[in-house]
């Protein structure tokens, strides 16, 4: 199996892989920021208790969660031009990624906010704090700690999902291996190397999440 594995080709193509890794990191970072913004907005809309706002947000979340990301990517990629919107593959991909992850982030944030007992809000009201002050000083400091691990979990999913952008010819890590494979016809070297890179990102994020969990327990104790 491995005796035919050609490490020299991997070294030769290392700059391409590193460029792909950088592109994946960049796309994931921008996608993450977009997803957090969408998620915070959707979460606030959903728990606002204002039906006209909550209903469309719920519809958005359920629609995203019930359809595959690949279909969403194609929907935007093939669909936006017919609306007269011209976007680059990068923008389309990041848009799809942000909207997709945003729906999951919204649910995670909602679970975090709702895990805080009602009495906390009531106490804030009794102190005469405004809505924003309650959010800033009472709800968020408590909610954020517990939501960081699931948010990091969603970030791992986001990084892996960004591989799908290679299918609309966005250059990133998976695309780099496809390029190498088509030039040299060595799928084993290309795809296995890329898998190792993804695994590295996964382990970094996973240990970050574990570290935060430990810290959380210490702080509570």
């Amino acid at each position, binding site marked *: 199996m491995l005796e035919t594995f050609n490490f020299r080709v991997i070294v030769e193509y290392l700059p391409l892989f590193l460029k792909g890794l950088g592109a994946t990191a960049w796309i994931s970072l921008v996608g993450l920021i977009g997803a957090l913004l969408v998620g915070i907005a959707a979460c606030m809309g959903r728990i606002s208790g204002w039906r006209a706002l909550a209903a469309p947000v719920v519809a958005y979340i359920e629609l995203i969660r019930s359809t595959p990301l*690949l279909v969403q990517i*194609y929907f935007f990629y093939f*669909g936006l031009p*017919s609306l007269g919107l011209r976007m680059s593959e990068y923008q389309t991909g990041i848009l799809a990624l942000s909207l997709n992850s945003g729906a999951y982030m919204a649910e995670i944030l909602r679970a975090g906010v709702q895990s805080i007992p009602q009495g906390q809000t009531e106490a804030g009201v009794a102190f005469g704090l405004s809505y924003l002050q309650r959010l800033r000083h009472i709800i968020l400091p408590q909610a954020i700690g517990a939501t960081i691990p699931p948010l990091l979990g969603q970030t791992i999913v986001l990084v892996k999902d960004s591989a799908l952008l290679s299918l609309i010819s966005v250059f990133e890590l998976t695309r780099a291996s496809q390029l190498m494979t088509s030039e040299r016809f060595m799928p084993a070297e290309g*795809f296995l190397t890329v898998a190792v890179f993804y695994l590295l990102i996964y382990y970094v994020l996973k240990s970050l999440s574990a570290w935060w969990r430990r810290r959380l327990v210490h702080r509570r104790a």
Partner: protein
Amino acid sequence: MWRFYFDQLYQTLPFFLKGLWMTFAVSGISLVLGTLLGFAAGIARASRYAWLRYPLHFYVDVMRGTPYLVQIFIVFFIFPEWGIQMTAFVAAIFSLTLYAGAYICEIVAGGIESVPPGQAEAAKATGLSPYQRMRRVILPQAMRVILPPLVGQYVLIIKDSAIVSVIGITDVTRVGWLTVQRIPEGLMVFGLVGILYFSICYPLIRLANWFERRMCDEGARL
């Protein structure tokens, strides 16, 4: 123009239903096999044998740490190099089963670990065999924790099965991709594809939510 394309799309509807059937077949077979694999791996991972636990940890990490797209490329393009030939359909099911098995393994292991150790000890004291302990005492209690995320995981796997379209399996996603080459109305074509997925996944999500509520209630009653 929209009207014209709509009629065309309506005519290709049988093609979409065929694709839907393919999605059903691929994800259904993989889910059944993946559940079997996941339960076996999960029970082994929750055991006290390190030589079972560590390789399974690694398997789960590899499956969860790499994109499914890369996994299916590895199975479909590299395995033939190593002398393992398979058709696209078999490759899709093989890779999706391995992928599903890893996630289900984690869910099952988590469920088993949530059962208090006193239960297993009591069952042992009653003289039940290891198989009986698992089958009659531990799993029935663990199922309460396992079932809601398991159904949720099924939804994720069905959605991930869209990725098998890249190796030429004509599932709904690929039918949409082929259709959009002739009917250049992406919103309409992939709107339809989305509706078809929605009709499968949304009821399952509701089912998972229902399980979750019911299991919580039962827990509270204890």
